[in-house]
C-alpha cells in the first residue's frame, strides 16, 4: 500500500481481497451457472469438468473460443449478468444486514444508489437475454456485508473489476448495438468505481489508462473471493418421518 502526494491511500488492486482459493465448487453450483455462460448444455459442460476441481480451473482458464456472433454475444452478456447478480446481491446483503443503515448519511446514500443501479442492470440484462438468461447463483459473502469496513473495501475492488470486465467485453460484441449499450454500462460503472474509491478514502482514479480484463481473468478473481457458493439442498424425495 502506497500513498500519493495528497495523502490518499493508493488503490487495492482489483481482486486483491485477501482470500485464498480453497473452496472449489463442491456441488457443481458454479459449473451449473457457468455452463450457460460458456454456451454449452449443463450436461456437456459438467462432462468436461468430470475430473474435478483442477479440471474446473483449467476449463475456466480457457473458455471456449466461440465464433464472433449472436452465440458469443449471449455468452458474454450472461457473464455480465452473473457479475451483476453478484454485485446487486452484495449491496442488497449489506442493506438487509443493517450495515448500510448504520453508515453515515453520505456513505449510506452511496451504497443505496449503487445497489439500486446494479439491481437495474440485472433487470435489464435478464430482460434482454430472456430464456437464455443464466440462473442466479447462490452467494455467501461470509460476513463481509455485515462489516462496514470490509464491505467498503470489497465494494471498491468489485467496482474496479466491473470496469475492467466491461472494458474488455464491450468492444467484442458482434451486435454493435450491444456494444453501444454495454459501453453505457461501462461509463456508469466507472463512475461507481470512482465514487466507491472516494468513499473509501483512496485515489478516485487509479490509473491514466484502464487495463481491460478477459472473462477468464475476471472469473478467476471472482472464484478467489469464494462468494459463489453451493446452493443448499432443501428438497428431498425421501419418505417423511414427521409425526403425521
Amino acid at each position: 500500500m502506497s500513498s500519493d502526494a495528497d495523502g490518499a491511500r493508493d488503490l487495492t488492486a482489483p481482486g486483491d481481497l485477501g482470500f485464498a482459493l480453497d473452496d472449489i465448487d463442491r456441488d457443481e453450483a458454479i459449473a451449473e451457472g457457468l455452463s450457460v455462460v460458456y454456451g454449452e448444455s449443463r450436461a456437456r459442460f459438467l462432462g468436461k469438468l468430470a475430473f474435478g476441481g483442477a479440471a474446473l480451473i483449467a476449463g475456466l482458464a480457457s473458455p471456449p473460443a466461440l465464433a464472433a456472433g449472436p452465440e458469443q454475444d449471449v455468452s458474454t452478456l450472461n457473464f455480465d449478468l452473473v457479475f451483476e447478480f453478484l454485485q446487486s446481491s452484495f449491496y442488497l446483503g449489506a442493506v438487509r444486514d443493517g450495515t448500510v443503515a448504520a453508515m453515515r448519511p453520505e456513505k449510506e446514500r452511496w451504497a443505496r444508489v449503487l445497489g439500486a443501479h446494479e439491481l437495474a442492470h440485472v433487470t435489464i440484462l435478464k430482460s434482454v437475454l430472456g430464456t437464455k438468461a443464466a440462473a442466479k447463483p447462490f452467494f455467501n459473502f461470509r460476513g463481509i456485508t455485515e462489516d462496514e469496513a470490509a464491505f467498503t473495501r470489497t465494494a471498491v475492488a468489485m467496482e474496479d473489476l466491473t470496469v475492467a470486465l466491461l472494458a474488455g467485453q464491450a468492444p467484442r460484441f458482434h451486435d454493435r448495438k450491444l456494444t453501444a449499450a454495454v459501453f453505457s454500462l461501462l461509463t456508469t460503472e466507472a463512475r461507481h468505481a470512482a465514487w466507491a474509491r472516494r468513499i473509501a478514502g483512496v485515489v478516485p482514479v487509479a490509473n491514466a489508462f484502464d487495463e481491460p480484463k478477459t472473462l477468464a481473468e475476471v472469473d478467476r478473481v471472482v472464484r478467489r473471493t469464494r462468494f459463489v457458493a453451493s446452493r443448499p439442498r432443501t428438497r428431498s424425495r425421501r419418505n417423511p418421518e414427521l409425526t403425521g
Partner: protein
Amino acid sequence: MLGVGVAAACLGTAFVVRSANGTPERSALRSPSVEIPQPIERAFDVPTPRPLALDRADSLWAPVLRLVEARGAPDQAAAPVARLETRTPEGTTNIVLELGHREDADGRLWVHVRLPVLPNNTTGWVPRDALGGSVEVDTHLVVDLERFTATLFEQGKQVLQARIGVGRAAWPTPRGQFYVRNRLSDFDNRFYGPVAFGLSARSAVLTDWPAGGFIGIHGTNRPELLPGRISHGCIRLRNEDIVRLAQAMPVGTPVTIR
C-alpha cells in the same frame, strides 16, 4: 503546442452531422466536409433504478455448513444450548432462521438463530463462519389452532388460507415461532399426501418418534376428517390446498403457531 495544434485543426475542419431524420446538417462549428455519424443506437437502455428497500428483509435463513454448537450468548465461552448438524433426517441441508447478529469482543461475528430443538422456541448463537449465505424470505405462515386455519402472508398481504387438521389433545401441535426446514415430494406414502413440509417444531410428547418427532405440514389421504383435532401433532391440509401452499411457500418461511 500539440494540443493547440489539434484544437486549431478541429476548428478549421469541416463537420457535418446528421439530423434525426438523416438529413445532413451543418454543425455549429460550420465545418464543411467531414461527416460524423450519429451515435450507434443502443440495444437496450437501463430503466430508472428503484430505490432499495429502506427496511431489512422480512426474514433470513442460512444453511449450516459445519457441525457447530449453538451457544446461549455470542461468546465462545458461553454455555452450549444445542448441537447443529449439517443435514436434516430427510437428507436435506440443515438450515436456521436468522434473528440478528453481533460481534464479540474479539471482532468475531455471531448470528442469533432459531433452533430446531426441544424445548420448542429455543434460540442460540452460532459463529457466522458456520453458516452459509443468507437467503431472504418474504412469506410468513400463521397457523391458528383454535380456528383450524393456515394463512400464508407474502410481504404482509394474505395470499392463501386453508382449513386444517391439528394435533389431538394427547399429541398437541406445539405453539410458538418456527420455520420451514425442507420440502418433501414425490415420496411413496399416501398418508402424507403429495407434498410435506418439515418444520423446526417438534412434538414435546412423541420424543421417541423416528427422526426425533418433527412436526410437519402435509396433505392427507383422509380429507373428510378436516378440519379438526385429528393428527399426532402435524398440520394436515387437503391435497389441493397443500399443492397450492407448495407453490407459494418457500423453504425458510417463518411459521407462527398460535
